[in-house]
C-alpha cells in the first residue's frame, strides 16, 4: 500500500506527528513537575472574534481559555481533548484518513465507574458528534495544525466545472470534460496542483440545482467562467479552493446566493471567514470576493437603478420573510463587516419590504435570462457589492 501513498501526504504526516509530540510533551512536563496539567486555548466565541478592517478578515481574538484537568468544569473537556489527540495521532501513525465522523465513533466509549458505596454510573466520553467536532477545532488551535494537515477528511460537498486542468493524487483531471457531472472538490485542496486554466472569472452559486442548470446550458463555456457550487453553507475545502483560484490565478470571484440573510452570510463566510472557524480565515477567506446577487436592489430597484423584475413577477416570486429571517437580518446589521453603505441599503430594503427571493425565481423567469442577461450585464456594469 505504501507506494500508493502520496509523498505529499507522507510529509504532512511526519510534520503533524512531531507537532503532536511537542505539544503534548508540555502537558506531560507539567504533570512530571507535579503541577495540575492545563492547556491554553484561544476562545472561539463571537466576543473573541475580531474583524480586521484593513485586511477585511474575521480573525481569532487574543482571549485565551485555561483548560485545566483539575477544574471541575473543564475536566471532561480536557479528557476529551486528550482522547481526540490520541485517536488522531494513531490515525496519523497508521497512514489512515479518518473523517470527523470516524473520529467521533472511534472516541466514543462508555466510562463505567462505581462510587464508593457501590452506585454504578455510566458516562460516555462524548454523546454527540457536535462535541467531538468541537474538540477537533480545539486541537487545531492548540497544535496550530489544520485538520487537512492532520489528514482528516470531511464529506465532499463543493463541486467545480470549467475550462481548467488540475493534478490530484497523481492524476490530471480536465474539469471541462465532466459530462453532466462535476468534479467534487476534495477535502485536501492544498494537495491539488493547477495545471492550466482558461477562464476570466469564478462564479460560485449557493444552490446546487442552479449550478446544474447553468452547467447544462454551457454557461461556463460561453462566458469563460469557472463554475462552482458550495451546495449551501460552504465547507472548508470549497472555501480554500476558491481562495486558491483567487490568490494564485488572480481570477475575480463572484458569488450568487438567495436574496435573504442566509445567502448574505454565505457570501460573508467566503469573503471574510466564519465565526466558528475564525482561526482559519487567513487561509480560507477570499477578501476580494464580490456579491453579484440576487440583491434587494435587483428586485426592487434603487434610485436610478431599474429592477430586474416587473411588478407582476415580484408578486409571483417574492416570499414573505419569516421572523427568523428578520432576526438574523438585525444580527447581520450589527456585524462590522456588513456596515458598508451598500450592505446597509440591502438590509434596510429587506427589513422594509420583509421579502426574500430564491435564485430559482430568476431561472423561472428564464434560464437564459439568468445566464445571458442578468449575470453578464451585472458583471459588465460592475453592479455588485463588495
Amino acid at each position, binding site marked *: 500500500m505504501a507506494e500508493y501513498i502520496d509523498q505529499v501526504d507522507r510529509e504532512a504526516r511526519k510534520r503533524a506527528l512531531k507537532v*503532536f*509530540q511537542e505539544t*503534548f*510533551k508540555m*502537558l*506531560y512536563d507539567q*504533570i*512530571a513537575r*507535579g*503541577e*495540575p*496539567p492545563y492547556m491554553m486555548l484561544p476562545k472561539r466565541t463571537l466576543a473573541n472574534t475580531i474583524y480586521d478592517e484593513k485586511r477585511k478578515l474575521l480573525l481569532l481574538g487574543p482571549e485565551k481559555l485555561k483548560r485545566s*484537568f*483539575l477544574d*471541575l468544569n473543564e*475536566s*471532561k473537556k*480536557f*479528557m476529551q481533548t*486528550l*482522547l481526540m*489527540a*490520541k485517536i488522531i*495521532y*494513531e490515525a496519523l501513525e497508521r497512514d489512515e484518513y479518518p473523517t470527523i465522523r470516524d473520529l467521533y465513533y472511534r472516541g466514543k*466509549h*462508555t*466510562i*463505567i*465507574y*462505581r*462510587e*464508593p*458505596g*457501590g452506585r454504578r454510573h455510566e*458516562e460516555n*466520553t462524548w454523546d454527540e458528534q457536535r462535541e467531538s467536532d468541537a474538540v477537533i477545532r480545539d486541537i487545531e488551535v492548540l497544535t496550530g495544525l489544520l485538520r487537512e494537515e492532520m489528514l482528516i477528511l470531511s464529506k465532499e460537498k463543493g463541486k467545480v466545472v470549467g475550462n481548467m486542468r488540475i493534478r490530484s493524487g497523481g492524476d490530471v483531471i480536465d474539469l471541462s470534460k465532466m459530462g453532466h457531472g462535476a468534479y467534487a472538490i476534495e477535502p485536501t485542496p492544498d494537495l491539488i496542483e493547477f495545471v492550466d486554466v482558461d477562464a476570466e472569472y469564478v462564479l460560485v452559486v449557493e444552490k446546487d440545482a442552479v449550478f446544474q442548470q447553468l452547467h447544462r446550458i454551457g454557461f461556463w463555456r460561453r462566458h469563460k467562467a469557472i463554475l462552482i457550487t458550495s451546495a449551501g453553507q460552504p465547507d472548508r475545502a470549497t472555501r480554500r479552493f476558491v481562495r486558491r483560484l483567487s490568490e494564485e490565478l488572480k481570477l475575480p470571484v463572484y458569488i450568487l446566493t438567495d436574496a435573504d440573510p442566509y445567502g448574505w452570510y454565505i457570501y460573508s463566510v467566503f469573503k471574510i471567514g466564519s465565526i466558528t472557524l475564525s482561526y482559519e480565515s487567513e487561509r480560507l477567506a477570499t477578501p476580494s470576493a464580490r456579491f453579484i446577487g440576487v440583491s434587494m436592489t435587483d428586485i426592487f430597484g434603487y434610485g436610478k437603478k431599474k429592477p430586474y423584475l416587473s411588478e407582476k413577477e415580484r408578486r409571483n416570486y417574492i416570499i414573505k420573510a419569516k421572523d427568523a429571517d428578520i432576526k438574523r437580518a438585525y444580527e447581520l446589521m450589527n456585524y462590522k463587516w456588513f456596515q458598508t453603505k451598500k450592505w446597509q441599503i440591502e438590509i434596510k430594503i429587506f427589513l422594509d419590504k420583509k421579502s426574500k427571493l430564491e435564485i430559482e425565481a430568476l431561472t423561472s423567469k428564464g434560464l437564459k435570462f439568468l445566464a445571458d442577461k442578468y449575470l453578464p450585464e451585472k458583471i459588465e456594469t460592475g453592479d455588485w457589492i463588495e
Partner: protein
Amino acid sequence: MPRRQQQLESFRSMTPSQFFYEYREVAGFGSPSRALYQTVRELVENALDATDVHGILPDIYIAIEREPENPNYYRVTVEDNGIGIQPQHVPYAFGQVLYSSKYRLRQARGRFGLGAKMAILYGQIRTGKPVEVYTSPQGSNKIYFFRIKIDIQRNRPIVLTRAEFPNPSGWHGTRVSVVVEGDWPRARSRIHTYIQRTAIAAPYANIVFRDPDNRIVIYRRRITKLPPIPREVKPHPHGVDIELLKQLIAKTNAKTLLEFMVEAFQGVGKKTAEAFLEYAKLDKNLDPRTLDDKKLEYLARKLREYPKFRAPSADALSPFGPEIIEAGLRAILEPEFVTAVTRRPKAYEGHPFIVEVGIAYGGKIPPMNEPMLLRYANKIPLLYDEKADVAWKVVDPRNFDWKAYLVNFPAPIAVLTHIASTKVPYKGVGKESVADVPEIENELRNALREAARRLRDYLLKKKREEEAKKRIITFMKYTPEVASSLATILKDMGVREEDVRKMLLNIMKKKLGIEDDKFHKLIQGLEVSIEE
C-alpha cells in the same frame, strides 16, 4: 304607688369537680376525639412522673380497646413500673378533683391535681363506668385494687370496690384503666404522634402501645441514662407575693425576720438576709407574725425588687440533657445529623427554668417548607396550638434567619424545644402551649442559635466533603483516558500510562488538600473501567 318589683338573685357555691364538669373543655375534654387523646396523655404523664422523676427506668404499657357494648366507648389502660400509691391516698388521687402529690416546688409533668380526675369524670358522665386502679407502692408485699367513681356534687371519691392481693413477684407500679367516649378514627394520628414524641423525649423508657386497630408500636429503651432527679426547693424571694408570704409565715417557727428569711427562702444565708433587711429598712428582730397586710405588701415588694439575691436554684429542675435529646431524635427520626443544647438555668419572676433545643437534619426527615417543631414543656410533648406557642415564634422562618445557617426551605429539619421549669407558663390547664415570657423567648433563641451554628458547621463540612468527593470521582474517571493518551503520543520518550496515572493521583491529592487516609477512603471502592 305600685310596689317595686324585686328581682332576687339566687346564689350557690360550686365544688371544683362541679366547676370542671361544667367547663371540661378548658382541660382538654371538649369533644370525644380530643378527650380520648387527653385521657391517654394524662395517664401516660402520671406514669412517667411515677418513674423517671424517682430514678426508675420506665416501662410503660398503653392500650386502647373498643368496648364491646358501644363502638364509641374506649377503654384506656396505662400501666407503669413506678413508685405506686399508698392505698390510703388512692381514693383521693383518683376521686377528688385538685388532689395531688405534685403541689411542690420541683419539676414534674403533673401540676394541677386534675388530669386523672378529668379523664375519670369524663368517662363516668358518659359511660357510667368507674376507674379501675391496681397499685403497689415500692417495697409493698400487696397489690391494691380499687374501683372508684367521683361524687361530682361533693367532690368526694366513691369507692365501689377495694381489694388486696399478695405480691409475690415484688411488682411495683400502677395500672389505671378508664372507659371514655371517644372518636378513635379522628384521634388516631394525634395519639400516635403524641406517643412517638413522648418516646423521643424518653429514650430511656420502654413504651409499648396497642391501639384499637390492634397495631402494636414498641419504642425500645435506647439509653439507660436518666435525667437528673429534681429536688424540691424553697421559694425564691423574687417569686413572692402577699399570699405566699402569709403561707410561709404560718408554717414557720422563726421568731425573727432574719431567721424567717434564712429558713423560708432558697439561696438566702444570714449575710444576705441582713443585707436585704438593711436595704428594706426593716428591723431584723421583728417577729414575722406581727406583720400586717400593709407591711406584708411592703416586704413582698422589696423582696421582688432586691437585685442581689442569688439566682434561683436549678436543683428543682430536670432537663433532658443533650445526650437524651440526641438519642431520642436519632432513634425516632433517623436523621443524618443531630445536635442538642442545654442552656444554663435562668429565671423569670423567681421561677428557675432551663431551655433546651435539639436539631435533627436530613436522613429520613422529609423536606418541609417549615421546620418540624417538637415542643416539650417539663418533658410533656405539646401538640395542639403550635402556632400560638413561644417556641414557634422563635423557630418561625419569618423570625429566624435560617439561611444564615445554610438551611434553605424546603429543608429536612426538625427542631425540638424543651422548657423545664418549676412553673411553666402554660396558656391553659390543658397544657398545650407556652406563653410569651421574654426571658424564655430569649433563651430559646440563644439555644436555637447555638444548635443552628453546629448544624451550619456540619453542613459546611459536608458540602466540602461532597465537593471533594465529586472532584475525585470526576478526576478519577477521566484519568485513564488522559494517561492513555499521553502514553500513546509520547511512547517514544518512554512515558508509561501507569506512571502518568500515579502522578495525576498525587497531584489531585495535593490540590484537594486532604489527608492521606481520608483520600484513600474516598477513592477506595471507586472503580473506573472503559467499555470500548
